């Protein structure tokens, strides 16, 4: 498995125009970033399209990575998720449920990945558990599915302004807990 420092090296070399490093970065991270696009978009053709945009963006913006202070996978996942949600917002038509396209449950992390991720995962879970459950679910819905305030308010059965006010309060608690 490619280590975090390998991925960081690939990004820094990509920033210098190293195409071999860019290809290695793609090989190491494209499955994760495609998973992010698919989860947000629920649509295979769009996710493939956005994945291309993601790596074009990574090539062009890799030089900014060195100065932004992000850990490498956070930066890559943030780029992918933002572009996928931009695409989601640009279309209105509903897509088929993701389960129709991929059996996502079948491809969990390896035991090594799971161990590496578990402590950070435990922190976000603990912090979300401290929130009222509908706001914890709202944070998950916004992050994982790219849901809007409108979507979140409908699902929770509250007016949109109520959702916004209470979610903002929950975000303050969440940030305190995460920091």
């Amino acid at each position: 498995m490619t280590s975090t420092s390998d991925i960081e090296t690939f990004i820094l070399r990509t920033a210098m125009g190293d195409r071999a490093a860019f290809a290695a970065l793609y090989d190491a991270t494209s499955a994760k970033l495609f998973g992010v696009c698919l989860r947000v978009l629920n649509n295979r053709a769009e996710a493939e399209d956005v994945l291309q945009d993601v790596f074009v963006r990574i090539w062009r913006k890799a030089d900014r990575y060195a100065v932004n202070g992000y850990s490498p996978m956070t930066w890559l996942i943030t780029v992918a998720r933002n572009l996928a949600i931009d695409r989601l917002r640009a279309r209105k038509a509903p897509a088929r449920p993701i389960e129709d396209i991929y059996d996502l449950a079948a491809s969990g992390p390896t035991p090594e990945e799971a161990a590496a991720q578990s402590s950070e995962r435990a922190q976000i879970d603990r912090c979300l558990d401290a929130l009222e459950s509908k706001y914890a679910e709202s944070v998950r819905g916004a992050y994982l599915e790219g849901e809007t305030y409108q979507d979140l308010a409908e699902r929770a059965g509250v007016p949109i302004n109520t959702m916004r006010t209470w979610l903002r309060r929950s975000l303050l608690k969440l940030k305190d807990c995460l920091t």
Partner: protein
Amino acid sequence: MTQAGDQPRDDIALAGEYALHLLDADSRFAFEQRLRDEPELRNLLREWDEGLVSLATEMNEVEPPAAIKRAIEVRLFSSEKADRERWFGRIGRWIGAAALVAAAFALAMYVAPSFTRPDVGPNYLAEIAADDRSVVVEAVFDPDTGEIDLDTMVGAPAEGRVFELWLIADGAPAPVSLGVLPQTGTDGLTVPEVLRSAMLGGTLAISDEPPGGSPTGAPTGDIVAVGLLTSS
């Protein structure tokens, strides 16, 4: 490192909403304008992104089709090569062999930015492309100056026709003209101030028009390419 306690509470919640992508287009645009000038806000956003990213462990890996990698390399590298060759040809025709030293200098000035990639603040990018990639135009929008740099990577209007750029803002009833594309490879248009905040999340489209652009204020020819403008 900046601690959450140093930040106004409004900004803490606002940065969280931005990180979750909950802000509407106008608020998102305004937040990105602040990010350019406020390092503390950038730190706050980074803390949010780092704090939330472990939720992505729920986004399982899926191997993309093999053709995607090749498609990315074609997009990035063959158009770059084609563009450079196009410029060689054009410069040769324009000024002739006697001025090749000057041409080499001009080419170096033209190519240099793609290697040095100066550190600019958040800007907005779009690839405006035809489905079959017979037309590909890269657009970079600077919201401060309203300048939109356009680089035609592939394609050109037919003889006696021009390409016109349109903004289709999110929720807008009709496209708004941003002007006729310059005939040379890399050049810019200026977006009027009143339209700048509508650019983010808007769709850019290129239509085929008579010389001087559409006479009606709406596209009269085919839409040849489209692309979504997104923040960097």
